[in-house]
């Protein structure tokens, strides 16, 4: 009886230790790969930053007309953006190497899948980037125009436009990556439809007189009466 218990305990311990012995090298390899890639990413990023700063890249880009990139970049610095992009690419590659070392059964399928989806991923990233640029541009344009039209809720209006464009870009990117499937499409349609409906109701019910007066002026081609008789020029 005692021998059987002892055998069972030895067997279990043996299996656990074998499991740990099989698991540990992979885990250590993952940790090592992540640490090394982080270090390498940081080094490469720093080196790139040093070179770009020496070339006065930010100012040159501004002269070449890359204002949009500068505006989108963290702290308005395209150098910082490129530095971070390089560093994070190396870190992501390090994770992939680490995962390959960690679980031979999972990652051989993961790597080709990741490689296959890279073009889609690239397109989705471009869609998101363009969406962010457009959102920032429209947000500022709406904000300035609304303030100049003396609309008190100018900030709210500009934020609404910004998030509408961002959500639209995100929905397009997710749809392109085939993430979420119909849920994303339906979610976006409900959100967008809801906004349009609420705006239509607000205008239709709340400001019908203003709209009808404005429409009347448009159709009769009458100039809008100005309450400011001053000539500015």
């Amino acid at each position: 009886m005692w021998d059987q218990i002892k055998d069972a305990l030895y067997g279990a311990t043996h299996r656990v230790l074998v499991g740990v012995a099989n698991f540990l090298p992979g885990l250590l390899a993952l940790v090592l790969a992540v640490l090394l890639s982080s270090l390498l990413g940081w080094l490469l990023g720093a080196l790139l930053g040093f070179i770009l700063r020496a070339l006065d890249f930010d100012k040159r880009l501004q002269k070449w007309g890359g204002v949009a990139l500068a505006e989108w970049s963290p702290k308005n610095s395209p150098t910082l953006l490129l530095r971070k992009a390089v560093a994070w690419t190396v870190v992501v590659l390090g994770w992939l190497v680490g995962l390959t070392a960690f679980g031979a059964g999972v990652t051989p399928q993961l790597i080709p899948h990741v490689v296959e989806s890279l073009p889609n991923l690239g397109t989705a990233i471009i869609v998101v980037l363009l969406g962010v640029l457009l959102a920032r541009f429209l947000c500022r344009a709406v904000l300035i125009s609304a303030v100049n039209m003396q609309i008190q809720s100018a900030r709210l209006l500009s934020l609404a436009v910004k998030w509408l464009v961002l959500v639209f870009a995100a929905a397009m990117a997710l749809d392109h990556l085939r993430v979420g499937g119909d849920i994303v499409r339906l979610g976006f349609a409900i959100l967008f439809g809801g906004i349009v409906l609420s705006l239509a109701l607000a205008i239709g019910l709340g400001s019908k007189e203003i709209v009808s007066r404005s429409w009347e002026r448009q159709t009769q081609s009458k100039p809008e009466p100005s309450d400011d008789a001053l000539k500015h020029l």
Partner: protein
Amino acid sequence: MQDPDLTERIVPATHAPPATTAIVVGVPSCNHAGTVALVLRTAQAGLGEFGSGQSSLLVSADSHSSDGTREQVRGLRGENPLLREMGPADGAAGGASPGVEIRELRMILELALQVRARACLVLDASLTSMGAGWVAQLLRPILDDQFDIVAPCFARHKLDGGISNGIVYPLTRALYGKRVRQSLGSVFALSGRLVERFLARRVWDIEVSALGTDARAVTEAICGEYAVCQVFLGPAEHAASGPSLDLSSILAGVLGSVFDEMNRNVAFWQKVRGSEPVRWFGTPVEIGGSAPPVDAHKMWESFRLGCRTLQDVWAAVLPPATLLALKYLARDDSAGAGLADDLWARIVYDFALGYRLHVMNRGHLLRALTPLYLGWLASFVREMGAAPAQDVERRVQQLSMVYEAQKPYLISRWRWPDRFNP
């Protein structure tokens, strides 16, 4: 030197002009069916009254009107067979676009050069208050006194011309050192040699906006060290053609031209210190009727709204001390303290620098100045609303001197934009 694209579009005249013509009077137009005939008739009468005995040519340049302006001009040919019409040979009409009048202006200058004109007068087709005497008043300084450009100074109500009084005049005076009171007159006369220079330098090749074309002409003449003078004229009333521009579009159009000129002539204005008067012709004309009522409170509220919401946009252009001063001012619900002259001058200089450095989309940048301009205007109206016209003029001169005093700030920021500016 001639632009072949433009020459091709000139409609052959029924009567060819003489090989040399002393005076060319040009009217660039775009959808001005209501007023173009009046301006052309008045110009014709003015040329008759002038009677200098020199050959003259009256030209209407139009390539985009779709409201019957060209039909109006053609109708006038019966009255004046020497009237020349310039535009696309096929007669195709297009939509009105910003800068379209610049193209027409270039056509007129090309013709003036072709006929070796001694003087070229450019008139605004939207004028409804033009007098026949204006033609002689604008042309005489060129033909008799050898000036190269004549800028008009229209009679106006004391608070009118806020953009001119608060920005364009003080800025132009501080930058280029000449006191040209109204460079945004939309009417000007040029000498033959200045026409040649403008075409050679391709001054109007950058078609930014039709607004500020006149200011560009004056600036280029000053920077080329040509003789500049100004003439007092009566009030200038304009008829609206098409949808009227809102204030921020006007501001963006005018300042776009002024700031472009600043960028083009850096080497000139950085050497200029102080300013000198420019010779006047004629006598000041009093404007009749009472000044229109102005709501300064509404302007100040626009400024306060801008201060509450546009801080992030302004932060890209203005230094922290200016932003703080603006925040402090915006706490006041009446324009009690108002924008101090030195603060206002520095704001305009900072926006000029922001325009040069392209810190954001230039249209956004210029439009973001609107609430600040309204804040300045509200302060100005509060201060000068009850004052006589002479005091208002004195106040504008005082503001201009502050612009001159603040010029070292502009030069310093222009040369070292990255230097810390608290």
